[in-house]
């Protein structure tokens, strides 16, 4: 079976003046359909960089990123937008709902860009809200909801287009621990129903809720394996000598 997500020696460089920051350094991994993977690492380790590339918001500086077997690096902006629309569902730390739209209109947005006709759009958006337990609140504006509820709306929005990958960037970061657990449980539920979930977090206790952990450090993958293995949560010491990076 082909991998759904495949990183082949993916590098990302940021140029600031005459210094070059290597945010991703020859990263390789594969994620298969139906997996629940957590990408963990401390601040600055390159999680967001990976997430942006997986989410087709950015392209690698070097290396190849295959999504569903297609090379994303070769695509133009329009094709990237189409991929984001069809294959990816984003869940952000800050929810990122549109404040002027009500809940159902918010959930409809991806379908609108997919060209789904109005009636069907509304129906599917209502159903997605129903799934996250907010079916009766569809007329409300995001600001009228609690943080946990807003995050559930953003989950509904991520799910509504039936994407291949649900990409969650610190989805519990802005929530208290109880609501955070609820959201995590919801992600696990989504996974059980057959979706591929990629969770990005700095928090080990959250990462272990996934099946598999990819640990990043300074732009390198330092662990890739099941979340219940003891090494999964041990922060490995920095690569010996620290000079392992190519000049």
């Amino acid at each position: 079976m082909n991998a759904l997500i495949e990183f082949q020696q993916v590098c990302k460089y940021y140029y600031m003046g005459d210094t070059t920051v290597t945010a991703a350094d020859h990263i390789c991994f594969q994620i298969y359909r139906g997996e629940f993977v957590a990408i963990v690492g401390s601040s600055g380790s390159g999680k967001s960089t990976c997430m942006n590339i997986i989410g087709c918001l950015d392209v690698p500086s070097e290396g190849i990123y295959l999504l569903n077997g297609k090379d994303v690096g070769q695509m133009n902006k329009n094709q990237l937008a189409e991929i984001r629309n069809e294959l990816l569902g984003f869940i952000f730390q800050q929810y990122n709902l549109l404040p002027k739209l009500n809940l159902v209109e918010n959930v409809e947005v991806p379908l609108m860009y997919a060209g789904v006709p109005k009636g069907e759009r509304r129906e599917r958006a209502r159903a997605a809200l129903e799934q996250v337990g907010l079916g009766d609140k569809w007329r409300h504006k995001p600001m009228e909801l609690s943080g946990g509820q807003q995050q559930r709306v953003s989950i509904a929005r991520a799910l509504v287009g039936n994407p291949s990958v649900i990409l969650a960037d610190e989805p519990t970061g802005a929530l208290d621990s109880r609501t955070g657990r609820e959201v995590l449980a919801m992600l696990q539920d989504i996974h059980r129903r057959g979706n591929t979930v990629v969770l990005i977090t700095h928090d080990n206790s959250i990462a272990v809720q996934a099946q598999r952990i990819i640990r990043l450090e300074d732009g390198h993958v330092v662990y890739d394996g099941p979340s219940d293995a003891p090494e999964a949560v041990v922060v490995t010491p920095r690569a010996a000598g620290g000079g392992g990076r190519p000049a």
Partner: protein
Amino acid sequence: MSIVESLELAVKNIVSSKVRTVLTMLGIIIGVAAVIVIVGLGNGLEGYVTDSFSDMGTNTLTVTVMSRGSTRSLDVEDMYDIVEENSEYLDLCSPSVAMSGYVKIGSDTVDSTSSLGVSEDYFEIAGVSVAQGRGLQYSDMATRAKVCVIGAYLNQAYFGGNAVGQTLRVGGQSLEIVGVLAQQDEELEEGGSDDCLYLPYTTAERITGEASTYTITMKDENYIDESVAALESSLYAVFASDDYYTVTSMSEMLETMTSMINILVGVLAGIAAISLVVGGIGIMNIMLVSVTERTREIGIRKSLGAKERYIMQQFVIEAAATSALGGIIGILLGDGLSVIASTVIARVMEETLTVSPTLAAVALAFGISVGIGILFGYLPAKKAARLNPIDALHYD
């Protein structure tokens, strides 16, 4: 995402920030209203001028003789001879001797009346008929009769409708009223067309001096150029120079007036149109601010799969809808102001000059405002569409 959906979204955004929208539209509103009122005013003015000219008849020519400085001269008899010579083109002729000074009726002094010394053909030339008594006759000219024909206004206001047989004084000369003209204006008013007095030109010449202006009718209105040329060549033969006379046709004057009004209106409308451009820049400014404010929204939309052209479309349509709305408000305001202006002009100037906006001006104003929205919305929309989704997502 269809245009209709973009439009819905735009309307939502416009409605959700009413004060800002109104301020954004202000330049467009003022510009459109100004253009409509000015064009309407020009129209009214043109209509007014055309009406006044058609009262005079468009088949008349006016000859003004300025024989001062010339060794030769031309009197009324000579002029009649010239008209006779050119009878192929020319028909009737009447001198017009404008009388300065007031009309005195009993102990009243009337300063609004226009008094003119004319020939017996004048009423036919001017197209007015005599309602009471008689008109002026050839014998009045020959005998320098001390008679006059007055307009309906004087008859009503000073003689209770029974002026015939009474007397009045013009320039110190006592005249007997022999006729009253039919009413010309809808209402009798001081200074109007009915506030007039005509006496034999021979009598007038005695009081004021020799006639220098003549009104001549053409046989056929379609031969204006030929008629003017014939008249001018005869006059040239008299003066051996073209410095001492001018021939103007009413229709020519009307044309000149109309084109002058059009130029004036064009210039004024152009100035008003500048305010449309300023309004457009205002829209651009607000849209740029709005793009910055909505950077995060744009990032979110892009992450959810919005292509650049959808973002572009959304902002352009929002700008176009804002200025179109401004245009509609401006049109309504302009129409309202036109009605008010017509009323005010009627009150203050006692003239009926209808400020009538044309459909073409309204359509043009609307089209221009939409165009301005698209034109000035384009740059901000481009900026929005080009935003990098990652940067936009993390903007706050």
